[in-house]
């Protein structure tokens, strides 16, 4: 009996090791503007805005960045202004 119990545990541990141990403990997303109290988003700061666009220069969804709706809108306008001023590309490849 005891042997069976132990053998069961061993095999489960083995499976656990074979898979990525970091899968499953997702960290909760948060809006960094709310957390750090950033009130204004500068369109003249392309390095900062780079965090919110993907490799093709497209805006990342809130689903991924975790921004609140209010700041996602502000990010969107800031990115569009930066594009107009040629600080960010309209179309790109391998931006990052």
């Amino acid at each position, binding site marked *: 009996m005891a*042997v*069976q119990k*132990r*053998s*069961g*545990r*061993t*095999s489960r*541990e*083995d499976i656990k*090791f074979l898979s990525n*141990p*970091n899968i499953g403990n997702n960290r909760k997303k948060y809006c960094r503007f709310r957390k*750090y109290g950033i*009130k*204004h988003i*500068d*369109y*003249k700061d392309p390095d900062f805005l780079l965090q919110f666009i993907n490799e093709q220069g497209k805006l990342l969804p809130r689903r991924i960045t975790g921004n609140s709706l209010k700041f996602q809108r502000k990010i969107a306008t800031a990115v569009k*202004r930066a594009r*107009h*001023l*040629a*600080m*960010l*590309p*309209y179309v*790109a490849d391998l931006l990052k």
Partner: protein
Amino acid sequence: MRQYETTFIVAPALPDGEIKKAVKNYKDILEKEGCEIVHVDEIGLRQLTYPIKRHNSGIYFTIEYKSENGEIIDKMELVFRRDERILRFLSVRLDKFGVKYNEDKRSGVIDKRKNDLAAERAKERAEQEASNKEKRATNRKSQKKKSAERAKAKEDAALAKAEVTDAKAGTAKTIEVPADVAKTVEVPADVAKTVEVPADVAKTVEVPADVAKATAEPVVETVDTAVDVAEEVSLDGDILGDLTDSDKKG
């Protein structure tokens, strides 16, 4: 009074005087209309991310000013459009946070905070990485231990097997064990010597695992060191579990 901000790009291939003249021209236009100029910021030469009017770089300027209403912006933008030297322009009204942001930026608070934030984020990341590393290390350690155990068990099994085959022929009853389980059977050397099994019989007979337990126990009982052997010989399908189990005891 509302605060506005106009950013524009001047073509880079102009003589220095020309650029300064252009900036001064717009400043004059604003001042003539009764605007209060807060700050003129020269961002400087920057690479454009896409060519504008066949230019690949441009000199960026930002003028912050206060105006009663936005009428001046239309007038100024008309001048911008007519100006060959200007590649792009953008006028924006600043809300109170924007005003504060620009003030902070000028006094250097923003850069400091930015650095702080970056440091904080880097620290967070480092912490996470450290914890991950630790986890991985412990995992690796346990794996290493396990594999070491396994190796040791295999060695023991081989040794035991060798002893069994060396034993005198035909003096005792046979222990019948299926081939795959036989590897896991660990018998201490001294005990193994007391169990006397003819080599050829042990090899040839094959019994399924569940039956093996039933058959093995009575056989073992006939030997004097029955209890020890019974404990050591763990007859289960799962090899790994048996190995770790018996190793812990050993």
